[in-house]
């Protein structure tokens, strides 16, 4: 359990440290080391959970079970690799004169603030605190979206702030309704919002209140997941913020919001014994998936393109969690992992590509493979992976989702297949020109660190070829916890 405290204390220290010490050459490197330390702490925690099963801290404030521990490790890992990428990237942005020391200080401090909020969402046992941390994540990132202070970025940040703030207020109303239900069964006091306590009494909670609460929770956290029709902030925030931000927003924030929904769904399912929560998630998931794939075709900004791809994949995951059952849940967990890894890798590459071309507009990005082959190949392989080609992990998870759909709702399978096909076309019509097109005059390579990209893509490849035993075991445990039955 000590590891969990470490995980929270390290970023807390980071916030204060970066905020008060000011910016220097080494800040970026120090940020990397902090994230490495967090990652090591999460590994330590993971080993504890693997050996000892679910951990509950003595005051019941923190709960680590197989479901969240893997997300914690994933969060720390993506955070770490992104920080590796962000150090030279931000230094380059400073050289271009887009940023100054004060902004960089804010950036690093809030980077750690965001990580803290993410860890708190994942580790806390109190669904009220979970909400507070989720809102905290918005607050930490909102100033990062407007970091460049261009009118567009300020507009994006304002949209992000208002939409997410109001959206997530719905989740608080849902949480209050949950609490209301808990108070009704005589469970008032400080323990009434503890997830572990609620989960134990889930069947006693009033199903009607919980159904209603879930609607609000899904709307609230759904805004953060980027579910259509509450997704408007997402492409703007992703495209206008600095690229490392986009990587962690796509790779982490969306996952953690989905995590919050699934946690609450577990309570609701326990109370209602019906599929109602699942149907809602399926509906919104499918809608987001289908809307996003069509929007892919209409984009001109490379970061907006991939943020719509994020909406698409989050929709697919929400859909899969909605189907419920062991196979679909397993597939959704796997998809969460591979999507996080792939998408953050893509954003890292895209960031470099935009620096090479000097623009984010896709019409301006051409001939990457000739200017800087590493970036060109990185973008190409990343896109191949995210589009769901074998042998990458995304293929495996999408295949499993399709399998589960065919099993439970066969008539929805064609829709999914169609969506995947359209998304593939939408991505490749843009990517092909950017990677292979005519190289513009005077385009020069930039200093890039593609190590994180390669690690991520290698991991995704590995997960596609063979899921290692311990990981499969881990996923099975999490699936058992969420769906109540073991996969395959």
């Amino acid at each position, binding site marked *: 359990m000590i590891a969990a405290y470490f995980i929270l204390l390290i970023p807390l220290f980071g916030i204060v440290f970066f905020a008060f010490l000011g910016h220097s050459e080494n800040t970026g490197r120090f940020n990397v080391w902090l994230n490495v330390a967090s990652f090591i702490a999460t590994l330590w925690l993971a080993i504890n959970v693997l050996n000892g099963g679910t951990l509950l801290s003595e005051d019941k404030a923190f709960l680590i079970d197989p479901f969240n521990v893997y997300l914690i490790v994933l969060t720390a890992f993506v955070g770490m690799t992104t920080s590796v990428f962000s150090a030279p990237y931000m230094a380059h942005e400073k050289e271009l004169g887009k940023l100054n020391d004060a902004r960089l200080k804010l950036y690093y401090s809030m980077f750690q603030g965001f990580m803290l909020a993410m860890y708190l969402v994942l580790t806390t046992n*109190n669904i*009220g*605190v979970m*909400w*507070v*941390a989720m*809102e*905290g994540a918005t*607050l930490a990132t*909102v*100033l990062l979206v*407007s970091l460049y*202070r*261009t*009118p*567009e970025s*300020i*507009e*994006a*940040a*304002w*949209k992000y*702030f*208002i939409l997410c*703030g*109001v959206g997530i*207020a*719905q989740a*608080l*109303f849902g949480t*209050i*309704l949950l*609490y*209301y239900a808990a*108070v*009704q069964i005589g469970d*008032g*006091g*400080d323990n*009434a*919002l503890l997830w572990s306590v609620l989960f134990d009494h889930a069947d006693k909670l*009033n199903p*009607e*209140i919980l*159904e*209603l609460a879930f609607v609000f929770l899904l709307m609230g956290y759904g805004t953060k997941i980027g579910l259509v029709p509450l997704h*408007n902030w997402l*492409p*703007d925030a992703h*495209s*206008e913020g600095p690229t490392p931000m986009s990587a962690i927003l796509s790779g982490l924030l969306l996952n953690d919001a989905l995590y919050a929904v699934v946690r609450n769904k577990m309570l609701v399912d326990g109370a209602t014994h019906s599929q109602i929560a699942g149907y809602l998630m399926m509906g919104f998931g499918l809608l987001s998936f289908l809307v996003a794939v069509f*929007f892919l075709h*209409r*984009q*001109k*900004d490379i970061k907006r393109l991939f943020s719509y791809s994020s909406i698409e994949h989050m929709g697919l995951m929400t859909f899969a969690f909605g189907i419920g059952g062991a196979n679909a849940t397993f597939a959704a967990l796997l998809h969460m992992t591979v999507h996080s890894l792939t998408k953050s890798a893509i954003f890292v590459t895209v960031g470099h590509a935009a620096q090479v071309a000097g623009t984010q507009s896709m019409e301006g990005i051409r001939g990457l493979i000739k200017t800087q082959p590493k970036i060109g190949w990185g973008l190409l392989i990343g896109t191949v992976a995210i589009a769901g080609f074998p042998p990458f992990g995304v293929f495996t998870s999408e295949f499993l989702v399709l399998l589960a759909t065919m099993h439970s709702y066969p008539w929805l399978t064609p829709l999914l297949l169609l969506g995947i096909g359209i998304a593939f076309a939408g991505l490749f019509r843009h990517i092909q020109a950017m990677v292979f097109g005519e190289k513009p005059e005077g385009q020069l390579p930039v200093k890039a660190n593609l190590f994180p990209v390669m690690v991520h893509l290698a991991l995704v490849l590995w997960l596609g070829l063979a899921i290692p035993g311990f990981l499969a075991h881990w996923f099975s445990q999490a699936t058992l916890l969420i769906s109540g039955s073991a996969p395959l």
Partner: protein
Amino acid sequence: MTLSTMDFYTQAILSLAALIGLTSFLMLGQGRLLRLIFIFALQGFLLTLTTALVAYSLDNPHLYISAALTLALKVIFIPWMLRKEVIKMNMHRDVQALTNKTAVMMGGASLMVFSYYVLHPIVHTTTTVMLNALAVSLSVVLLGMLLMIAHRQAVAHVVGFMSVENGLFFAAIVATNGMPMVVELGVAFDVLVAAVLFGIFFLHIRTSIDSLDVDLLNRLHEVDK
């Protein structure tokens, strides 16, 4: 369970609920920003009264802390900040004429009916009228959103945002007699940080578009044109 059989405490809570609902409506129909902020502060004050009343009747000391926090944040700090902003931008003289005030008001009334309709399924789960407070607070939340839609000024958006928070807070206080302390402190902290961030944003928006009219923030589109 009619009103006459309830104790004075319940009656007072219900009246406060009605007044808080009324302030939401007043805000909705208010074109002048300074008056809008004043009504918002009034709503915060009613909320403080509610919290203190609940704290007194339940003899729950931690709710007094919540009441003090509400007073400090929503009655003093945020209105003060917004007021300063409005006066600095010299917006207190122009009447932000709402283009379709009557439609907005009628929309607000239907939202109130809607929120009762939404909560209707759980009405029979309780014998206390406290549940009705949930309906009022949901409508305050929805009216706050409507306020944000109807207005174009960033200041009005912040007021709407905060009044959404007020509605949630009211639900937490009345329907469930307050959330656990740690959650309430966390929420108050978030509100504080949000308020400070709004202040920073006003500065940024002003420097970038030289106005606080958010309709001018229109550069980003869903699809490129």
